[in-house]
């Protein structure tokens, strides 16, 4: 009995989470104050990126500090195809994901000769190379970037098809698209984790020589892991570009597109499917709420939100380095249920 409830309870939590997630923006829509819908959008997009980063960082154990390069590649690919050729953003997303995977595979293969800190440093170097390219390449308008012309006067279906939500429904529309993309990312990464890839990634993380000794080509699987991460970041970049209606280097190559997802993953639970979701749910609202509440008061502009961030990270690193999800939640839940059951018995007696 305890075993079956142990399996069922995560599903109940998941179902409740999905329902709450789907209902969340509706009262906000009525009230007309859509700011918290945008906060929700940022939570979801960072959660999605964290879910993607978990593949290279959590399972394959390779610290990739520059996945934002693939975020930028996705955003630019879809924006160029839309602006110059009039491609649908969804086709653009497919192209952006494929471009991110292709470039990632080409760039990452040589880097996999490096291990540990050196691999991490080399990923940062790739980001540093990407910045001047983004700022000076005339084909993508250099540092001015690309502006995505706004399309107004579409119905609901038209807005979904063109990935453009304007006016009063803007925050609402992008919230649900991000929700859907996060669900897709979770599902894909779940399949990866459960399958042969997940086993091989973790084997390489735990002992690369040991993994090679049982026939796992470690370099190939590191490339595959990072390419999956790149695919998720590519899709995220497309979504963000159309939300922002602009793609320019300083924005899509911003360091925050790696630090926030990585921090969300570490805080929530690295190497756990839902870790980044929980982490983003904690970290992003704190940052947003802090910057709006303290941003106007006497403490304005002092980066209080960043200080709180720092403190949370330090606390979790010190108290629970494997993340919040690694705490014995199911045991606590079972204990709580048992206490309630015994309380009922006592009441009856």
């Amino acid at each position, binding site marked *: 009995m305890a075993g079956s409830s142990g399996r069922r309870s995560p599903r109940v939590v998941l179902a409740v989470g999905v329902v709450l997630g789907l209902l969340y923006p509706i009262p906000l829509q009525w009230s007309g104050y859509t700011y918290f819908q945008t906060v929700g959008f940022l939570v979801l997009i960072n959660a999605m990126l964290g879910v993607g980063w978990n593949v290279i960082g959590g399972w394959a154990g390779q610290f990739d500090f520059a996945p934002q390069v693939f975020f930028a590649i996705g955003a630019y690919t879809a924006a160029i195809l839309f602006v110059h050729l009039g491609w649908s953003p969804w086709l653009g997303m497919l192209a952006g994901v494929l471009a991110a995977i292709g470039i990632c595979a080409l760039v990452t293969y040589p880097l996999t000769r490096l291990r540990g800190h050196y691999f991490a440093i080399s990923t940062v170097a790739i980001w540093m190379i990407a910045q001047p390219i983004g700022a000076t390449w005339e084909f993508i308008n250099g540092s001015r970037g690309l502006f995505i012309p706004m399309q107004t006067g579409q119905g609901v279906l038209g807005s979904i098809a063109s990935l453009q939500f304007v006016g009063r429904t803007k925050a609402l529309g992008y919230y649900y698209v991000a929700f859907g993309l996060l669900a897709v990312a979770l599902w894909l990464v779940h399949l990866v984790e*459960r399958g*042969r890839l997940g086993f091989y990634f973790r084997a390489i*993380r*735990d002992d690369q*020589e040991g*993994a090679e*000794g*049982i*026939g796992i*080509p470690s370099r190939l699987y590191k490339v595959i892991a990072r390419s999956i991460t790149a695919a998720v970041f590519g899709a995220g970049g497309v979504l963000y570009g159309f939300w922002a209606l602009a793609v320019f280097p300083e924005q899509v190559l911003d360091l925050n597109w790696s630090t926030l997802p990585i921090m969300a993953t570490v805080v929530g639970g690295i190497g756990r499917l839902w870790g980044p979701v929980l982490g983003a749910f904690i970290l992003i609202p704190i940052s947003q709420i802090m910057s709006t509440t303290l941003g106007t008061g006497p403490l304005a502009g002092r980066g209080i939100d960043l200080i709180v961030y720092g403190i949370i990270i330090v606390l979790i690193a010190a108290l629970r380095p494997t993340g919040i999800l690694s705490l014995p939640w199911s045991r606590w839940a079972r204990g709580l249920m048992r206490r309630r059951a015994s309380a009922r018995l006592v009441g009856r007696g």
Partner: protein
Amino acid sequence: MATLLEVRSVTKRFGGLVANKEVSLAISAGEIVGLIGPNGAGKTTLFNCVTGYTHADAGRIVFAGADITRARPERVSGLGIARTWQLVRTFGRMTVLENVVCGALKRHARVGEARARALRLLEFTGLASREDVVAANLTLADKKRLEIARALATEPRLLLLDEAMSGLTPAETAAAVELVRRIHGELGLALCVVEHVMEVVMPLSQRVVVLDDGEKIAEGPPAEVVRNDAVIKAYLGEHYRGRR
């Protein structure tokens, strides 16, 4: 018996140090060969050359007709050589079952099949009760046993054991020897066993190869090798001869 592995005058240098000097040896299908020698004799280097973790500077290594002199470890594994390590290399954050599943996935692409195969191997190696334990929490003896199970999961024809019994208690050593005998007897694998403990390797091996200072100094049945003067001088010492 058909020759499975053939090492032909392999030389391996690390800078000025010659770790293996024109070492030749052959292992037939279904044979147990003991590889002995004092510390630094070049036993592990030879294993590394055979399994592709390092490559010989000269000489050739042929396994089942394929030249593997310059092959990568994953190719050597695919051809049918599995190994264990002197310092264990289990996947510490994965469970015992998951460790073995990783090995089985090479021949069974579907996780379900690999899992079934892994469970049978845990049964065979006596680790079935530990299936859900995280590998880092095992005793050394069980870690070494797990490495063997994981290696067997790749379905090799030749298993190289690098000091599978070092650091074990006498009881654990006896259990490990028993396991090696069953791998040979029931699975019919060829084995090459590097070992320091003479009492273990001598009765276990059908043939013993002795390395000293990177060179092969003797080869033959255990009973002959222990009487070989060069071997006694280099490695076994007067003590062992006295006891015969």
